[in-house]
């Protein structure tokens, strides 16, 4: 597996963890901050760090918004992680309303803790932000292979979540505050996760490896 994988750098925070995970599974990560950097890459990772409006503005300013849309249209496999998944939705209400790439039906909104602040007989509560490991239930409703990952634990770290997602797009969710939290989405050759596979230990690396071996529907 020597595929050159674009890791989109939109200027904020840690893309090193994604780089390191790609190297660990035998891929060659390429830092991409402008469209011409995409030459020769076979797939794209849109990692998740920072605030939605800044990220969306930086992608626009660098011409990366259009470049990513072109990749999606061409059917190039793309993995969005955390904010990278949220950027693929229609919009976010973080610091006012900002449009997203709109590949997935659904909006990105601040997490509501719901009724889970404290449950009878438990000493551990559901908190905002959602930081920690959760078991993810995967559904076999996309072309992405999920059997290896069903009920496995992945690491989440987010203050915003995707709501009103189309069930056709959601192929993984997790229990949060007594309800279902959108954990994995898929459309065409784009797959996206709310959790961080690059921080989810051995099973996370396996997820990244599965993405590298997947060519879409």
């Amino acid at each position, binding site marked *: 597996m020597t595929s050159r994988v674009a890791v989109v750098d939109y200027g904020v925070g840690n893309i090193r963890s994604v780089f390191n995970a790609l190297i660990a599974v035998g891929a060659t990560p390429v830092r991409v901050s402008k469209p011409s950097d995409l030459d020769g890459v076979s797939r794209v990772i849109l990692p998740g760090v920072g605030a939605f409006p800044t990220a969306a503005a930086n992608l626009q300013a660098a011409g990366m918004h259009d470049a990513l849309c072109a990749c999606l249209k061409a059917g190039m496999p793309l993995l969005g992680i955390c904010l990278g998944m949220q950027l693929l939705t229609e919009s976010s209400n973080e610091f006012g309303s900002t449009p997203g790439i709109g590949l997935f039906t659904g909006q990105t909104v601040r997490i509501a803790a719901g009724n889970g602040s404290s449950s009878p*007989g438990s000493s551990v509560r559901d908190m905002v932000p959602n930081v920690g490991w959760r078991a993810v239930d995967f559904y076999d409703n996309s072309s992405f292979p999920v059997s290896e990952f069903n009920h496995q634990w992945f690491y989440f770290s987010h203050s915003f979540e995707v709501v009103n997602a189309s069930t056709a797009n959601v192929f993984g969710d997790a229990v949060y505050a007594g309800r279902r939290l959108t954990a994995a989405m898929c459309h065409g050759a784009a797959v996206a996760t709310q959790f961080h596979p690059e921080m989810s230990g051995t099973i996370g690396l396996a997820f990244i490896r599965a993405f590298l071996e997947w060519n879409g529907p």
Partner: protein
Amino acid sequence: MGTAPCGVDGRFVEFMNSLRVIARIDVKGANAIKGIQMDGLRVIGDPKTLAREYYEEGVDEILYVDVVASLYGRGCLVEIVEAVAQDIFIPLGVVGGIGSVDDAYRAFRSGADKIGLNSAALRDPELLTRLVQEFGGQSIVVSVEAKRSSDGSVWEALSLSGRERTGVDVREWVMLCESIGIGEVLVTSVDRDGTLRGGDAELAHMVADAISVPVLYSGGIKNSEDAVGLARSTGVAGIVIGRALHEGLVCIADLKESLAANGIMVRLV
């Protein structure tokens, strides 16, 4: 106790967060060290080797605490973090020596997944606001070094690795930090740190009760029983273990089995 099975769409769901077991590695220069009550520092090994060992053993997160960075105004643990981040694929937190947005960029760029601030945040809480806006709250941790008052009723936040008094009340401080939008609070009992006398459940409970962001408790954990008791009684999201791990008094796999057996959801590896 613990998981409350309830059929939703024909599937079982659980109404609670999982608990994280976090390895704390205090660092001075190139060495992993451990003090007692944040004093009398002793070299215990190589910080990179320890992190890799705990990762292999199934810990949920690694926390590096640079115990002298604030004091000397040096940069954080860039080189150690760069090297370790290549080998461990769980969250890596870095506390110590981050005093500006630029320092934070350096820490994240080197491979830190979250950063923790104590002294700089106490000096200038506005810095937390700027970090939250820049990076999002979920990756910003406030580290609180809590010292019990002589009458035992309240805790004071200390700065500079427990060396300096601030007069700031811990409960008020963590509530202010929560209102700024930070992602997690790491609270260390200065009185128990490195003593193996057991965690300060009253402190852990007081902080976890005051705020709804995840609280990670550190200080004095001596064995699995102690960790389980603290997890059951306080509402913390993470148990941070240092000396008891370094000295082999806690085995991560056994601790997680005990937690699970006591109805606390943990990631079993």
